[in-house]
């Protein structure tokens, strides 16, 4: 159904809506928005939201899965000068050609800008030369602390997760961190059991007290909306919801009391350029389908 450069809702809004009478039209728009929320997949919304966190010229620890695609979208649209770093020693300016599952897959290594060792990318991270890092996790708490090591299941069983990888390093040392995660009550919790990757800790001043030189999470992009940590107390507040979601619904699906930021509204639909980039880099909808 998708045409390169124009989503179905965009097409409907642009070519159909102007020809419909107002009162009926407003109902029609609601229908289009609902359609949009189905047509524009959650994966697409997350990718686009993530891409918009990348500013032009920034040095970014890209990570895998959705952020990888977000980097490609940003590079193709508003941030052509962004540079991607990967923990295994890859520096890339060109988005990888074709679908990749790991950061060392052939297409991510081929035609890289530079290939070297881990310290060649962790060094700049530690020296404060990395603007942004993308992270995932199993759990995130009120202050954006992440757990990807082990979580307590309901019956006191502990589920062992793979661990930090480079997540803790990025969380400690990048200027900003953006987290992508499925929005479920068991994942968005009051306090994580284990801090794999430090966020704002216990709130204002905590990172300084730990000796962390900079950083902290700026946004948490979930399957339902965007939570931001820019309030002075560093508690994550709902800043936007994906069309189709409601503030009340999101609050109910959050495993902690979540405050709502002033001006909380819907996330903007993908632009034609953003959608075209997604169609180019995820043609079969593996990540966004």
């Amino acid at each position: 159904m998708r045409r390169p450069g124009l989503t179905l809702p965009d097409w409907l809004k642009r070519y159909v809506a102007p020809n419909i009478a107002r009162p009926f039209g407003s109902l029609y728009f609601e229908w289009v928005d609902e359609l949009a929320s189905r047509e524009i997949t959650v994966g697409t919304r997350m990718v686009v939201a993530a891409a918009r966190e990348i500013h032009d010229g920034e040095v970014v620890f890209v990570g895998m899965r959705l952020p990888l695609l977000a980097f490609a979208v940003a590079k193709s649209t508003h941030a052509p000068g962004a540079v991607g770093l990967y923990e295994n020693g890859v520096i890339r300016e060109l988005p990888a050609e074709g679908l990749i599952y790991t950061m060392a897959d052939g297409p991510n290594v081929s035609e890289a800008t530079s290939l070297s060792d881990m310290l060649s990318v962790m060094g700049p991270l530690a020296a404060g030369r990395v603007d942004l890092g993308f992270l995932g996790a199993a759990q995130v708490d009120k202050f954006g602390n992440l757990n990807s090591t082990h979580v307590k299941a309901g019956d006191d069983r502990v589920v062992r997760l793979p661990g930090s990888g480079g997540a803790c390093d990025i969380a400690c040392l990048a200027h900003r961190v953006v987290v992508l995660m499925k929005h479920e009550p068991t994942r968005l919790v009051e306090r994580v059991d284990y801090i794999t990757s430090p966020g704002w800790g216990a709130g204002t001043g905590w990172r300084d007290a730990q000796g962390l030189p900079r950083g902290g999470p700026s946004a948490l992009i979930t399957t339902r909306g965007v939570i931001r940590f820019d309030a002075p107390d560093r508690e994550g507040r709902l800043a936007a919801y994906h069309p189709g979601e409601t503030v009340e619904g999101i609050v109910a699906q959050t495993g902690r009391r979540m405050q709502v930021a002033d001006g909380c509204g819907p996330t903007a639909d993908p632009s034609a350029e953003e959608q075209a980039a997604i169609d180019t880099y995820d043609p079969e909808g593996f990540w966004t389908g």
Partner: protein
Amino acid sequence: MTLDSKLVTLDEAIAKFVPVGCSVVTGTYMEQKIPFAAAHEIIRQQKRDLTLIGPISDILFDQLIGAGCVERVMATWVGNVMMGSAYNFRRAVEKDDPMPLDVVDYTNFTMSLALHAAALGVPFLPTRSTLGSSILEENPHLLVFESPVGDSEKLVAVEALHPDVAIVHACKADAQGNGMVWGNLGITLDAVAASSSVIVIAEEVVPAETLRRDPNRVLIPGFRVNAVCHVPWSCHPSPVQGYYNRDDAWFREYHKASKTLQGYRAWLKKWVLDVPDWVAYLDKVGPERLKKLKPSSGIHSDPVYTGF
């Protein structure tokens, strides 16, 4: 006078340089060049009580854990990169099944620094990473201290890690163990420098003269290497840039097979215990499947003038 060759078979190298109870660093390139051939041989030789050291081990550590070879894992991430969980690892940690497993959690950077410290001959290296994390609280090899220079700020001392043996891939190696590498390097060079013994598993073994035409790619120094094994396709199903691509389906199949211990054991019997060596393994994988993994983009480096 000619020099003694270090070329041995993979089973000889594992028998000699991977004693029971030793510490092994491997999977050091990260998701490329994971020496599965060596892991399978370690399993066949029933090397037990190993300490495994590595960053992102993908499914190699999981296979060794499920086979009962591992006492301790010092790693940053143990799983199946494409699929998520490593089930043998989870069973061992969550249920002591088939046996308990000691896990020491690192981060990519601190593991890199631990080996870099050994490579630089110092007891530790400082960093600001892990401050505020539970990893710092739980890993006994990470210690908070005050910087001796500047404003006495808080730093983390990452203790040096000295593995007994490094098992690493090389694209091309000579009989002295000088290894030519390309692609992303991960923590390979520090792992080689930090370890007491080094096994190089080469895609190609070539005369020393071949390597000398391009010394900038020869980053594994032969004087640190104890054994060179010539094992083409040794990293299947992980990729080796320019030689073969990743066998994605293999990781999916392994994920499915290893969901239960029983399922894993059937997988292990089929792909490891019932095959005598890597040649037989590759035969069983089949030439059709391998052929599909050959690179096709045709992109090669340009020659550069290295002479005078």
